């Protein structure tokens, strides 16, 4: 296969990654990495560099639309980003100490269980009639988001729990070099009880920031290859812009099932990766 056909194939896979990533709040590395390593036999380090590009492109491609339409909760995103970034710094400094492969398997299993949690039926948001959470009110985290029946106010709760979970997610992502999009969505959805579309859009806003924080390191180590990154970036951007247009009209139930299916795949990939190592 020559470089032109190779680039075109990767661009198609990247389009799917961007499309699914923008709708689920995940980075799309779960498609890009196995396509590069398993299908094309690329070295894992090139795949990590390309996956990082994919996360930033997914995030930036969809963020414009989500922020403008009012799905993204900027306050929640910024607050939780403090936890993720500081956690990631701690995690990166612990790499030599922890059994990363065992942790990867454990984390994969946690994701499989989380897939079940996210598909349990529940009310979509805490309405304005719900009792206000004192800390969430003081931090002005309650907001509103667009729905087909007009703007809907929602309340937020259990901020400290979500903050702690995001810190752990940051440590894991620094330690294992994985995106923390899944944990971001879960923390907002399951702990803070945000509407699902707000959780995925806010996670989408955050994953790019988290990934950019480690971009400098990977660039300096020579992981980011322009020949791979080019089709990944262009494909992912196109996919995420298309996905972002569909978020508003897609029923939440369907999004939850999509998210659950994707984190099952990610969980299985991680268990495989941790158990059999290498790729």
């Amino acid at each position, binding site marked *: 296969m020559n470089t032109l056909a190779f680039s075109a194939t990767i661009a198609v896979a990247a389009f799917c990654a961007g499309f699914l990533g923008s709708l689920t709040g995940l980075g799309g590395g779960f498609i890009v990495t196995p396509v590069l390593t398993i299908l094309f036999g*690329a070295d894992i380090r090139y795949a990590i560099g390309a996956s990082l590009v994919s996360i930033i492109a997914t995030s*930036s491609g969809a963020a414009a639309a989500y922020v403008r339409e*009012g799905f993204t909760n900027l306050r929640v995103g910024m607050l939780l980003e403090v936890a993720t970034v500081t956690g990631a710094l701690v995690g990166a400094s612990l790499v030599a100490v922890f059994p990363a492969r065992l942790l990867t398997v454990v984390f994969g299993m946690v994701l499989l269980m989380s897939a079940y949690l996210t598909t349990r039926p529940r009310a979509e948001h805490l309405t304005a009639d719900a009792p206000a959470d004192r800390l969430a009110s003081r931090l002005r985290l309650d907001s509103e988001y667009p729905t087909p029946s007009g703007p809907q106010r929602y309340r937020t709760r259990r901020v400290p729990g979500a903050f702690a979970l995001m810190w752990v997610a940051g440590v894991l992502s620094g330690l294992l070099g994985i995106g923390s999009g899944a944990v971001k969505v879960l923390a907002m959805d399951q702990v803070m009880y945000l509407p699902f579309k707000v959780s995925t859009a806010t996670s989408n806003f955050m994953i790019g920031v988290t990934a950019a924080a480690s971009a400098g390191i990977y660039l300096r180590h020579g992981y980011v290859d322009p020949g791979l990154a*080019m089709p990944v970036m262009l494909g992912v951007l196109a996919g995420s812009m298309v996905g972002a247009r569909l978020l508003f009209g897609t029923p939440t139930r369907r999004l939850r099932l999509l998210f659950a299916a994707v984190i099952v795949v990610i969980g299985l990939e991680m268990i495989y990766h941790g158990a059999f190592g290498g790729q």
Partner: protein
Amino acid sequence: MAAGPDRSQDARVQRAVGTLLRAGVLLAATVVLVGGVLYLLRHGGGVPDYHVFHGEPLDLRGYGAILRDAFSGSGRGIVQLGLLILVATPVARVAFTAVAFAFERDRVYVLVALLVLALLLKSLAG
């Protein structure tokens, strides 16, 4: 909590941030596309080899070196420059958000956004 006026201000700020973000992303995509076309015109018929990790050459790793490479017309250098612009978009996003909170006179969140910005810049500078 404050409801009405606060919210319309939020919406205005969100529209402005959204527009700025779109401009940055389109710029990055255009640069990568130009570099990518040059790269494929020159190397499109070759056979890609990523089985063994060599690491990128030094001129595609540092910020200054990438700039020099790009302006000398190297396809790979131009793609890498576009990727740097892409990496800058989340940084700009955090900076815009800080400005947006400042317009709302929300001092707590200006500080939060600036803290995230500082951590981000520190790790990018290495």
